[in-house]
């Protein structure tokens, strides 16, 4: 198994520790374009695509392996073994924050710390626990995914809409960004939004930084506070941001929060 090719791993920079960035549901590693490079002057920075997303090896997608977060967690451990050097800090957005937790429990010692951006261990409300969604909401997401199947699979957005003024992405990357096989997207949506990682999370002992947007539909503030309460060695930083992707819409404050956290870990 060629992990490099399977997960389309990219490495930049060098330093006493490695930062591994894992994207969430919907897009690919290009999500980190505004944030990850900021660390490359002092750290080894690794970005990769989850199998099924971006430019990962679609041939490697196996619906049994990726039927739960376990398969993704195993991949992540393999990615770290392939390119990690020194202490490794795992930066996971959204579902990948939980993939990091599962990977940590599977292979203790793999990670020196976690940075969780917009994490949620469980999206569905359950008794006293507020995840933010009901089961029907997830069904309506699957419906929306399905109804964008035709457009999304064949969309040539930049060509139709004209060249944008300040494209963050070159044309070759736009071709794959946010686009995936509809069956994979459907399964990944299920795995993402129907998983319940609360029990795993409660067992995590590695230091963690939680970056919580002040307003986030997908990972609401109460969920960030829940995680902070559950994790004995966690720091909660609330970033003034509307939306689920502070690394895109508020890269500056996100960067500062991570820098402060890395400083407290004293790697150098």
């Amino acid at each position, binding site marked *: 198994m060629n992990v490099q090719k399977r997960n389309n791993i990219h490495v930049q920079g060098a330093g006493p520790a490695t930062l591994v960035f894992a994207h969430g549901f919907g897009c690919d590693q290009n999500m980190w374009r505004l944030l990850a490079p900021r660390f490359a002057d002092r750290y080894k920075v690794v970005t990769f695509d989850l199998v099924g997303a971006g430019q990962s090896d679609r041939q490697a997608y196996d619906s049994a392996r990726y039927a739960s977060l376990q398969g993704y967690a195993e991949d992540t451990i393999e990615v770290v073994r392939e390119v990690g050097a020194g202490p490794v800090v795992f930066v996971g957005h959204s579902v990948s924050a939980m993939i990091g937790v599962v990977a940590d429990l599977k292979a203790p010692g793999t990670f020196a710390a976690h940075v969780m951006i917009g994490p949620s261990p469980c999206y569905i409300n359950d008794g006293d626990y507020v995840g933010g969604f009901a089961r029907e909401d997830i069904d309506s*997401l699957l419906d929306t995914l399905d109804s964008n199947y035709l457009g999304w699979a064949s969309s040539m957005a930049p060509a139709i*809409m004209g060249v944008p003024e300040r494209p963050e992405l070159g044309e070759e990357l736009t071709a794959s960004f946010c686009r995936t096989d509809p069956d994979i997207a459907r399964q990944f949506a299920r795995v993402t939004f129907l998983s319940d990682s609360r029990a795993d999370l409660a067992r995590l002992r590695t230091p963690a930084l939680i970056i919580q947007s002040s307003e986030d539909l997908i990972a609401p503030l109460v969920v960030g506070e829940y995680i902070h309460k559950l994790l004995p060695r966690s720091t909660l930083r609330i970033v003034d941001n509307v939306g689920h*992707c502070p690394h895109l819409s508020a890269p500056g404050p996100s960067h500062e929060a991570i820098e402060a956290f890395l400083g407290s870990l004293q790697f150098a």
Partner: protein
Amino acid sequence: MSHAIPGLAELFDEAPCGLIVTRLDGTIVKTNSTLCVWIGIPEHELVGAKRLQDLFTVGGRIFHQTHWVPSLQMQGSLAEVKFDVRHRDGRTIPMILNARRRKRPEGEFDEIAAFVAEDRNRYERELMDARRRADSLLEAERKAQHLMRDRALFAEQMVGIVSHDLRNPLSAILMGVQLLGRVEAERRARVLGHVQQSAERAQRLIEELLDFTQARVGKGLAVQPVPIDLHGVVHDALTELRLAYPGLKIDHHAEGAGACVADADRLAQLIGNLVSNGAAYGRSGTPIDVHSAVAGDSAEIVVRNLGEPIAQEVLEHMFEPMVRGETGSNTVRSVGLGLFIVREIARAHGGDMTVGSTAQDGTSFRLRFPAGDR
């Protein structure tokens, strides 16, 4: 002839598509009456008051966060994204949205055009339903082919094993018949006995095959349940079995009354299969215990032998056809249909078989079935 054309404001407001301008966080700063009419919400309730994503279903809002926002940020534009937009009265309207992020002197905005797509939506749903139907047909076809391959393989194996198993008793019979012509009178009786035994073995095999075919191809084994005395049936069956296995000690424990409703011949066949199984795989020199009881609404027969415990994964497949223990001696081997038929007999009585195996207690096969209206 006037060459006057409508003013820009009018064109914007009455354009044949919904137009929306939002801030980067989605807050609506401008919209047109086409959109307002489509969704039944007046302009003043939208501008400055609602965000684009507020118009979507919850699933649409998630999709907006996971796909729309990042794509727009990275690409600067998006085309043909479909959302269900909520009308004031609660129904949803499928709309196709195109968007472009623009830097204007006044700031950065997302400029969005929306088209109602009811017909396209219906058409797409039909396409997707057709695809789903095709997928499930394909899956069913694949399963059917798999099953057919399994059946064909099974049949081949079965022919192989049956031929092998029938050859032994038949060659013994032939040898016996040849011997009969040559040996003196006093040895004939013994040879005849062997011939008869082998012929019976061949006959049992054929009967098992017939039962198996009936159970598998037809609607299960035929049974004719009548009121019987369970203990008496077990006793008679064991008496015959003791003759067939002269060296084997078979104990019978009868518990309580024995009245129940069952097919006596089938029960005898079941006991015969279980005892011969115990004789083949049990530790030699140890007895086989047979226990019969009618308690409350159910009747049961337990056949137990001592010996090495059977592994759990073997126990799980014990009653499937063609499963055979590893240590069977040649005289008792069969096509491995014995236990399958045992379970079929149990099921034909409305009951079932269970099996348990430990080093201490040996292996116990338990038949339990409803005692019936006796």
